[in-house]
């Protein structure tokens, strides 16, 4: 379906102004290889700046790789980037081109530009708006909508003029749960009924765990792991995550707490620890009694998430969202 091999893309260093030091060139994709199978919902997970969008822009023919190959459905997209538009539907992060159009016109026009006839475009417009629950907003310009509604309208424009592959760059950013469900239902329907394949960029860990068949974890331009969410979590299955929130400051005079400090990732009053199950149990026993408990505001004990996998693989912590 999709075969990406040894993809390299370096952004040239921006020219520094006189006096200021020039920033170095950024290697956004550093030898990425991956395969996506037909009918799969395949995720690219990583924090902002990991190189996900750069990868997606090469998949969609918007950016030419410095080296490597991309084959989609048997077509060489490095040699023929213009074919991408006839193979896939793309939802980018920007909506500037559509902002001043009404939702209905944005969907209909995009369908027309994807090669549909006038009547087909209108029919698909009505079907997509009804499917996503956007019919009531059809006459409103996109820029008058809330962030989540606008994002849903943009998602709607990716659907008319059916393509066997959908490439969605953070489709659910800012959406409420209802809109999210509408997006995943629409994606599932296309997969079940027409065998569509979906490549999805996300930095949302919970979303990745619940909707993706397989995930490529990307960090600093490289694929550091690629498996099902369950398979990835098995890599750290002997560990659990313990989160401690202190009322004021950690009671370091308690020896058990002081011993935990070294292993904790601190963010304000919150400590996050990844521990083998037995150690986590004794840590919980220690902090839920005596002076440590008096200083404790809240604690949670959880099985590992993809975020823990990501950290265990050596990824940077910041930038992943749990919501």
């Amino acid at each position, binding site marked *: 379906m999709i*075969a990406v*091999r*040894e993809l390299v893309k370096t952004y040239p260093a921006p020219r520094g102004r006189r006096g200021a030091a020039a920033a170095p060139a950024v290697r956004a994709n550093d030898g990425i*290889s*991956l*395969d996506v199978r037909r009918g799969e919902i395949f995720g690219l997970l990583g924090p902002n700046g990991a190189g996900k969008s750069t990868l997606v*822009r090469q998949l*969609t*023919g*918007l*950016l*030419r790789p410095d080296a490597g*190959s991309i*084959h989609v*459905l*048997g*077509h*060489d997209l490095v040699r023929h*980037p*213009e*074919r*991408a*538009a*006839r*193979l*896939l539907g*793309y939802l*980018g*992060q*920007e*909506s*500037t*081109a*559509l902002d*001043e*159009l*009404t939702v209905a*016109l*944005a969907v*209909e*026009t*995009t369908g*027309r*530009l*994807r*090669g549909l*006839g*006038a009547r087909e*475009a209108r029919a698909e417009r009505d079907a997509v708006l009804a499917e996503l629950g956007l019919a009531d907003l059809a006459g409103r*310009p996109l820029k008058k909508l809330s962030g989540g509604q606008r994002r849903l309208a943009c998602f709607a*424009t990716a659907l008319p*003029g059916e*393509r*066997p592959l959908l490439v969605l760059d953070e489709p659910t950013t800012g959406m409420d749960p209802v809109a999210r469900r509408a997006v995943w239902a629409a994606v599932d329907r296309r997969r079940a009924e027409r065998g569509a394949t979906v490549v999805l960029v996300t930095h949302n860990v919970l979303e990745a765990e619940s909707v993706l068949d*397989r995930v*490529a974890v990307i960090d600093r331009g490289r*694929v550091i*792991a*690629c*498996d099902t969410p369950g398979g990835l979590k098995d890599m750290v299955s002997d560990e659990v995550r313990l989160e401690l929130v202190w009322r004021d400051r950690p009671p370091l005079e308690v020896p058990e707490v002081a011993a935990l400090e070294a292993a904790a990732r601190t963010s304000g009053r919150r400590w996050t620890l990844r521990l083998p199950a037995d150690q986590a149990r004794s840590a919980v026993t220690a902090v839920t009694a005596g002076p440590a408990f008096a200083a404790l505001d809240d604690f949670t004990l959880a099985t590992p998430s993809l975020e823990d996998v990501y950290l265990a693989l050596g990824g940077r912590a910041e930038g992943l969202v749990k919501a």
Partner: protein
Amino acid sequence: MSVVPAQAVAGTTSGAVDPSAAAAPLAPRARFGPALGAVYRAQLSRARVARIPLLFVATFQSIGIMVLLRGVVDGGDPARDVVAGSSVLVVAFVALNLLAQYFGQLRAGGGLDHYATLPVPPAAVVLGAAAAYASFTVPGTLVTAVTGCLLFQLPMAHLWVLAAVLPLAGAALAGLGAALGLLAPRPELATLCGQLGMSAALLLGVLPAARMPELVGWARDLLPSTYGVEALARSFGTHPDWSAVGADLGVCAAVGVLSLAVATWAYRRAATR
């Protein structure tokens, strides 16, 4: 795990089996005509939402200039130049200035990606936007021309020439505006170029050419709007020289074709980096 070393899969992608043999069929391209129509319609609706106040500004600006110059100019050739220049200024304001701003912002904001990931001919996007902006100048230009004729007691018999001046000057200026917007490295520069182009159209189009220094005269000859202004100004005569009007419009048309071709090239360049 599907992270595979390149050597291991080289055989599957570049071996004896030609990968294109099993290639999936491509969806059809959007054809030029329908795509142009769809872009035009969408752009016109955008303009209706966002640009009506600016159109009022453009029209009032032109009418204001004519009212101001009414005290200085009292008929004859200069009056024709003033009315023709003010009318074409509306076209320059919308087609050159606003379109340069639009494409500058679209390019900077990543909006071109939307079109670049659709199988639509680049010329359809550029021409559709240019045509929409040019048609949006029609009411303002008409109002300005009629007001000018009344103010300066010029004959309105040949105002139908506007039917040729508007699309041709519109094409030339919109093409120029689109090219500026798409080529400017930053959106502020696109805005600046659009403003400067409009100021040039204002000064060089409205002021009588006879009294200009030679250098400024050359600049005036280089500006595509000049030929639209001259064609319109000639039509206010009692016996217009139709061959000269035709020649002026021919220059407009040639510049229009050229600037729209440049704009299409600039779009292609901006859309696929």
